[in-house]
């Protein structure tokens, strides 16, 4: 027999609602019982026969307050696991609302849940009353005439109530959801603050991950492909140097292959330099930048004042900035010389790249400059550019390095 999908959905929902309510009963019962305990203690203390002999009031009160926190977590679990509702994790400052939810509203809901479950149990019993009568045996039935009629009524009423239980349970679950979310919510500014914190952490993670990935690729290239290519070029060079009496066509092929291999090494080297050179990790920004400056196709003066090393991510960004900037200068600026200044001013690493070129660089236009600004922003850096038409161009990047 197949169950129609609508009915199946209704059954699934009913099961979920009932589980939700059933899980709620013990959770809500805890503060209720504790409150009763407090009341009993109070009665002892304030009652006529009081001799202040049982001054254990602080115990249940403390338990009640502690319960308010622990129960919030349990409630969060209940809402998340059964209703798919993610209540925010509340902090100490919101303890009043947690207390109100768990100790004032909670018991009320506990009673309602109990009521619904009780109705369900009663309805089930009533709906099956014919069965009970059957089970009780004929002697009892003989003593109680008309029991069949009553059992029939009870069954009818029980079935009617059973039909109403899903709506009842669903209504209560919805109500609890509404109230739970209304009371256990987080204020808008608090929510934004948390969101910013989360985003900051996840962005830092992403930046570090990208950085580590670049480093790994560099390592792999360095220890694998580059060495192999050098060995290949070396062997081809050897062949060229030793096999003198080859036919000219063969020589040409070897020459060609040798040149190709050397060009491939060069290309791979510049690729690695753009990624994350090993020298940056090993010896720091100063050493890595002098390599960049020396390879630039125009004279570059490098001035560095770095008393201590910055975080790897910051060094990587600074290196990238200089690399891109020098690339841009070489490609577009038509400059005769450039100057790179890298200084550490307390918590700030300042990178200035200046050239005497034609100027007119637009940070909003070129994708290179845009990427550069983005990379700077990824570590909360500031990017400024002064490039009037006719030059000169000065690019300033400030990167925070909190140690």
């Amino acid at each position: 027999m197949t169950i129609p999908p609508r009915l199946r959905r209704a059954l699934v929902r009913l099961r979920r609602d009932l589980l939700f309510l059933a899980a709620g009963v013990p959770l809500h019962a805890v503060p209720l019982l504790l409150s009763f305990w407090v009341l009993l203690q109070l009665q002892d203390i304030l009652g006529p026969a009081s001799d202040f002999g049982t001054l254990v009031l602080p115990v249940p009160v403390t338990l009640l307050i502690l319960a308010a926190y622990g129960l919030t977590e349990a409630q969060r679990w209940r809402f998340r696991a059964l209703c798919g509702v993610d209540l925010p994790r509340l902090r100490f400052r919101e303890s009043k609302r947690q207390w109100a939810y768990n100790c004032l509203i909670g018991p009320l809901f506990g009673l309602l849940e109990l009521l619904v479950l009780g109705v369900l149990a009663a309805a089930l019993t009533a709906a099956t009353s014919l069965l009970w009568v059957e089970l009780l045996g004929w002697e009892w039935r003989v003593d109680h005439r008309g029991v069949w009629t009553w059992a029939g009524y009870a069954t009818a009423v029980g079935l009617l109530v059973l039909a109403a239980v899903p709506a009842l349970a669903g209504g209560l679950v919805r109500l609890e959801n509404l109230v739970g979310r209304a009371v256990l919510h987080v204020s808008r500014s608090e929510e934004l603050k948390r969101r910013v914190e989360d985003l900051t952490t996840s962005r830092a993670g992403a930046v570090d991950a990208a950085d580590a990935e670049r480093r790994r690729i560099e390592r792999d290239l360095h220890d694998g492909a580059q060495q192999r290519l050098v060995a290949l070029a070396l062997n081809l060079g050897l062949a060229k140097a030793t096999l003198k009496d080859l036919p000219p066509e063969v020589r040409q092929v070897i020459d060609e292959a040798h040149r190709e291999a050397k060009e491939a090494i060069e290309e791979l080297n510049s690729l690695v330099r753009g990624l994350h050179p090993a020298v940056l990790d090993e010896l720091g920004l100063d050493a890595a930048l002098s390599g960049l400056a020396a390879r630039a196709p125009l004279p570059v003066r490098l001035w560095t004042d770095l008393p201590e090393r910055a975080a790897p991510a910051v060094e990587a960004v600074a290196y990238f900035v200089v690399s891109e900037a020098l690339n841009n200068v070489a490609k577009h600026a038509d400059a005769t010389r450039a100057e790179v200044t890298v200084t550490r001013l307390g918590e700030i690493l300042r990178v200035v790249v200046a050239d005497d070129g034609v100027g007119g660089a637009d940070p909003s236009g070129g994708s290179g400059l845009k990427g550069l600004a983005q990379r700077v922003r990824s570590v909360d850096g500031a990017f400024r550019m002064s490039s009037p038409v006719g030059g000169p161009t000065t690019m300033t990047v400030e990167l925070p390095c909190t140690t």
Partner: protein
Amino acid sequence: MIAEDSVLLRVGLVKVLETAGFEVAAEVGDAQALLTAVAEHRPDLAVVDVRMPPGFTDEGVRAALEIRERWPDTAVLMLSQYVEERYAANLLASNTSGIGYLLKQRVADVEEFIEALRRVADGGTALDPQVVAQLLVRRRSDPLERLTEREREVLALMAEGRSNAGIAGALVVSESAVAKHINNILAKLDLPKADADHRRVLAVLRFLGV
């Protein structure tokens, strides 16, 4: 003597050295083995990779410095994947004879590489043009500013370890023109007249700023 952790490259280097008529006493894969081997064989020349196990940073350079200190007669040629002028400066700081610092990819030009090997083995210097260029970036204002473009080129080639004939060949000028340039350089750098070779080394040192 060869210390290089990449087996492929090591095999290639052995072939090159043997082609050039060198006898390879030992080939090792890390700095510790290098020092042991140098102590045992006392080679004329050690070809050393900068980056070697276990740390893959500057083990080779540190081993080379130790070799220079303990066995000053052993010439050392460093091979590096990238230019790191401070390594070169460290090596050159003690003594410029019998020292070389080349990029790994230079070994592909076998004939030039062999020439550099010979030069270093004979107590000369072989610096990669990129190292020289990088050292030049560092200099700000000093007597070098007074040199003309051509004189700088000559000085750079001197720093690479070339002889007058080598410089003349590289710049396509006559050897006497080179000698004239060198005299001008020495004069402009205020180097006292003494033994000519000694002044040449001084000029290079001044140029390299070490």
